[in-house]
């Protein structure tokens, strides 16, 4: 028998008993819908969680810590190079903190605007671009400032929010401060006192000593400084951790510290090896899948690490379990639908016993008879799955519409499903889920039709013809 004939025969058989076919298909639709929707809720939740974690920072970043001087492995330029040489490490830099250095930034007429510089960090300037530093304005740090010596102009990167740290020394009370989102009387946003990209700035080194009477003796020295760029996201709603940081090239900062010590005649106890070590560093991994292995390799070197990935993994595992559970609940109704298909097929074989017998006597091959029944069951599954997925898309759209911020159900369902918030969709049906659902329904149909089809094949032609 030709395949086209098999198909047309199958379709004809299904159309002959429209009501029964439709009812059976309806069962599959309900089953498919419940499984698809349950899984889609799980996916929606996972996506919301992913979004939330991604908002917390870059998932491909690993922080490295080295505690204490007794640690076997110290974090220095040499170990840092070893880490950077690892496969999959895209970029990285240690953070160098010059201890006990008081720095200030002055600007405006008669040093009207001033700002304390705490925690300027030295970084590898050439790594910043690959680290994914976001610039709101200007450029990243040039490599170590070319001109050396006393009259050097230091380059600095400033976080977007740090700019608001400038205070007005002439003003009193609240008027001395500016902060992000501060409005004037007309409701307009107030800019910071200083535009570091345009206004002239001075870097001021301070040192205070106390004499025997406890009188403070304040000394200061000035040097040139330029802000090469403002760090932070251009989108005001996105959090960027660098908004609150200040960076200099690591060698510039070391140089500045030497100058500081020289200027104020500070003697420092050098460590035995006379080398600079870092407390922490940060690296960026090129592929999120490699984060785990690199994280482990660095731990094996003797360092402590922290990455968002390490909190993401257990959360994802939990999500997967939840999804499995939800899918299982949906699966029960598909199982009921499968029983429905089996029942329909058995009924239809009873009804068509005589017909099957005639077909056999007319020389229809057994394989063809089996195919006809299998295909009927398969088609019921296929169309049920197809319609089920279609309806699921509709329901999913409806759910998302209702739970959208301010929707009638947002409170109820939100809290019921863990309330991830974050503005993500409650239910997400990716293409693979739609495809898998149709396939699954078809396979269920075929499986349910398998035993009835074999039964049809076994019907004795003679008995069937006599069957009234």
């Amino acid at each position: 028998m030709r395949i086209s004939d098999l198909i047309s025969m199958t379709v004809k058989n299904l159309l002959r008993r429209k009501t029964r076919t439709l009812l059976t298909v309806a069962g599959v639709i309900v089953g498919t819908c419940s499984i698809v929707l349950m899984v889609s809720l799980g996916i929606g939740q996972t996506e919301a969680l992913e979004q939330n974690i991604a908002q917390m920072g870059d998932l491909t970043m690993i922080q490295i810590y080295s505690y204490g001087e007794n640690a076997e492995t110290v974090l220095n330029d040499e170990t840092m190079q070893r880490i950077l040489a690892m496969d999959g490490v895209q970029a990285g830099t240690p953070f160098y903190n010059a201890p006990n250095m008081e720095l200030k930034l002055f600007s405006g007429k008669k040093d009207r605007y001033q700002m304390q510089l705490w925690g300027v960090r030295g970084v590898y300037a050439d790594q910043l671009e690959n680290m994914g530093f976001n610039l709101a304005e200007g450029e990243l740090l040039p490599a170590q400032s070319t001109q050396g010596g006393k009259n050097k102009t230091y380059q600095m990167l400033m976080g977007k929010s740090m700019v608001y740290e400038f205070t007005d020394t002439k003003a009193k009370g609240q008027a001395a401060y500016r902060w992000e989102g501060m409005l004037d009387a007309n409701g307009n946003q107030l800019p910071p006192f200083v535009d570091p990209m345009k206004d002239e700035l001075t870097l001021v080194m301070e040192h205070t000593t106390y004499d025997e009477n406890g009188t403070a003796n304040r000394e200061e020295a000035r040097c040139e400084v330029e802000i090469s760029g403002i760090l932070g996201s251009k989108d005001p709603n996105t959090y960027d951790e660098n908004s609150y940081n200040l960076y200099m090239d690591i060698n510039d900062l070391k140089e500045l510290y030497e100058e500081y010590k020289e200027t104020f005649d500070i003697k420092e106890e050098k460590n035995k090896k006379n080398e600079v070590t870092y407390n922490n560093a940060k690296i960026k991994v090129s592929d999120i899948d490699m984060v785990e292995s690199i994280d482990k390799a660095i731990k094996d070197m003797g360092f402590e690490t922290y990455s968002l990935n390490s909190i993401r993994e257990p959360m994802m595992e939990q999500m997967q379990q939840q999804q499995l559970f939800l899918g299982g609940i949906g699966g029960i109704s598909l199982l009921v639908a499968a029983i429905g298909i089996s029942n329909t097929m058995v009924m239809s074989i009873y009804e068509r016993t005589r017909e099957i017998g005639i077909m056999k006597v007319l020389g229809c091959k057994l394989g063809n008879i089996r195919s006809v029944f299998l295909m009927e069951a398969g088609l019921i599954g296929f169309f049920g799955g197809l319609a089920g997925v279609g309806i699921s898309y509709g329901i999913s759209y409806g759910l998302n519409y209702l739970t959208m911020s301010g929707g009638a159900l947002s409170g109820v369902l939100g809290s019921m499903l863990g309330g991830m918030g974050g503005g993500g969709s409650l239910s997400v049906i990716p293409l693979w889920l739609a495809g898998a659902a149709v396939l699954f329904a078809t396979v269920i149909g075929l499986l349910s039709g398998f035993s009835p089809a074999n039964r049809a094949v076994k019907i004795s032609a003679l008995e069937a013809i006599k069957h009234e």
Partner: protein
Amino acid sequence: MAAIIKIENLRKVYPVGKERIVALNNISFDIEEGEICCILGTSGSGKSTLLNQLAGLEKPTKGSVTIGKTNISVLSETRLAKFRQKYIGFVFQSYNLLPAYTALENVAMPLMFRGVSKKKREQKAKELLKLVGLGKRLSHKPTQMSGGQQQRVGIARAFVSKQKIIFADEPTGNLDSKTTREVMELMVNLCRKYKETFVLVTHDRDLALYADRIITLADGEIIKDERNQSIARTEEQIAAEQTAMESKEESKNTEE
């Protein structure tokens, strides 16, 4: 002429409760190619059982049925289906048309099972339906036709794929005497035309008169095997026989 069906020591026993009923008791005979053979017997004589054995619908308890060179008593279900597809056509008492299909589709069905294309098989089916006088009822469903018309569709179906052997089990059992005559003449004519072997099973002595040979069965045994001398051949039949010779050559050519 060569024997196309060979029956050797055929025995069929049905267990009914604790008793064993012998339906066929060591029957042996041959049917020759192109022969119109009637198996005559009262109900319970074993004639239907015999037909079922001949057509391979039932396995014998003992003995064998050989069609052509194939012993069909030992064939598996799958092989039997193939064999029937190739060699055997059926006409039933209760017509056994598929109610969901039109006359045309019913007649074309054996060809569909063989994998003949829709266009070709419907053309052949149309031809046959015209031959049985139903050229204008192609798209009627069985329920929209009279018993005689339904049986003619059944006959067209049996002859459509030019089978070597046609079996008919009380083909006129549900028809009135006038229609019976028409249907019988039609079948005999077609058999002669296509030179096919025809095995008719009936209890009706009048029907047996259409056959070349009459085998009478009683209690599972052959009690009489006679040549029918009294066949009144009409002018028509003789003419049909002659054209059959020619058209068989033709149809052979077209089939190959």
